[in-house]
């Protein structure tokens, strides 16, 4: 997966968790929670889906790395580079 594909993977997870939101216009550099309605349980859902879909473990002290799509790409790319992108909401 490229870094952009990692961001696509995260967006696809968010599409599952927050199906009412329009994700097309997300600003990758801004905090997700400032752009769409995401609470702490939703962030736990993102962490869980990363674990289930890609086997990626995100320790609690690193949750802050999932703040924006850009930071997700930076933080997750090393963990997911060797994996195939799986889109459930394509």
């Amino acid at each position, binding site marked *: 997966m490229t870094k952009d594909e990692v961001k696509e993977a995260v967006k696809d997870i968010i599409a599952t*968790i*927050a*199906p*009412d*939101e329009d994700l097309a216009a997300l600003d990758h550099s801004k905090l997700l929670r400032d752009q769409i*309605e995401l609470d702490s*349980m939703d962030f*736990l*859902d993102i962490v*869980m889906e990363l*674990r*289930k879909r890609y086997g990626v*473990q995100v320790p609690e002290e690193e949750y802050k790395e999932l703040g924006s799509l850009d930071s997700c790409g930076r933080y997750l790319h090393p963990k997911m580079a060797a994996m195939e992108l799986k889109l459930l909401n394509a």
Partner: protein
Amino acid sequence: MLDLPRIVITGIGLASPNGNNLGEYRRNLLAGVSGVEPYEIRYFGKTVAGVCHFEATRYQSRKTLRRGTRAGSVAIYCANEAVLDSGIDLEKVGRHRVGVYVGTTEHGNVETEEQIYEVSQYGYDLSYWSHHHNPRTVANNPAGEVTLNMGITGPHYAVGGACAGGNLGIIQGAQMLQLSEVDMAIGGGVSESIHTFGIFASFKAENALGEREDPTRVSRPFDKSRNGIVVSEGGCLYTLERLEDAQRRGARIYAELAGWHVNSDAADFVLPLPERQRQCMEAALKRADMGPEDIHIVSTHATSTPLGDIQECGAVRAVFGESRTTHINNTKSYIGHTMGAAGAIELAGNLPSFEDGVVHPTINVEELDPECEIHGLVLNEPKATKRVDTILNLSFGMLGINSALVVKRP
């Protein structure tokens, strides 16, 4: 007897396997339309069930639908429908003065089974166990989801009364109104039970799960060949108000709660006790200041089990056997057993009789079991009467809980 305020039903919201609102449900009851269909569930396999087909996203977002439970979703649909139907302005009542009392048979099995299945896919690693498990499985989940959805800040809780839960939710709401704990109550019951394989497997293990080729004819209380329960989901919530409040706002009043009684068999985990059922009915009649001949419809609880139906019929016969003004019917023959919703949803099916005088029948009775024979049974065809003024609604549950609720024409 204390001089307590009179309580009335002013709104009805329901999700039944054969109707998503009172009008549709009633039409199907009078037309003999079942809501039972082929069904399949993990581990158990093929069976039949009463499945609801209401539009879940009418009152909740897809996100909250995903986060909550099926019972919560049923409750949200029913509560919104009931409030709309009542014409009540929650702002005028004051959202902190509204109470939500939801009867359930069980809650949490669905989510627990789901999570155990989920972790089984990951070698039983509990780091895959959902953080949603606790909020989804607390007993107050369905009632709580209603308050979250509607911004109601008064009390909310579950009334756990096995399959008497629906009646108990109504009674609890009425009592809280009488005590002035709230100024409006949303009360009744819900069930998500078809989504737990355990309930099917357990009824099967008790030899109490109904079977037959045609799904619509499996649930057949009082029929000689009946062989068990059809498990169903559903819900029915009422808006309840004190009579003077309802009159003041010019509300349409469906019925007045005339009396009720709840008691316990103290005899067995599963088997009912006709003697205690009889006492329950008699106490409800006494509270309503009525005799058996004053009751025009007895809505039976009968679930289509060989023994349970006979025992209930014995109890009903003991109270109403001599009455020539009482009609007796059963709604599970159409929709199966909606568990925690049963008491509330079965009452709703009968309430339009106050308007049209028609008693919907117990369907699927090909050969009446002589042991279920009671004078006044309405079988297979609706019965037009001169007038229906009163209904006694029966709901019983495991661990020996009995409830009888009397309602009367407003």
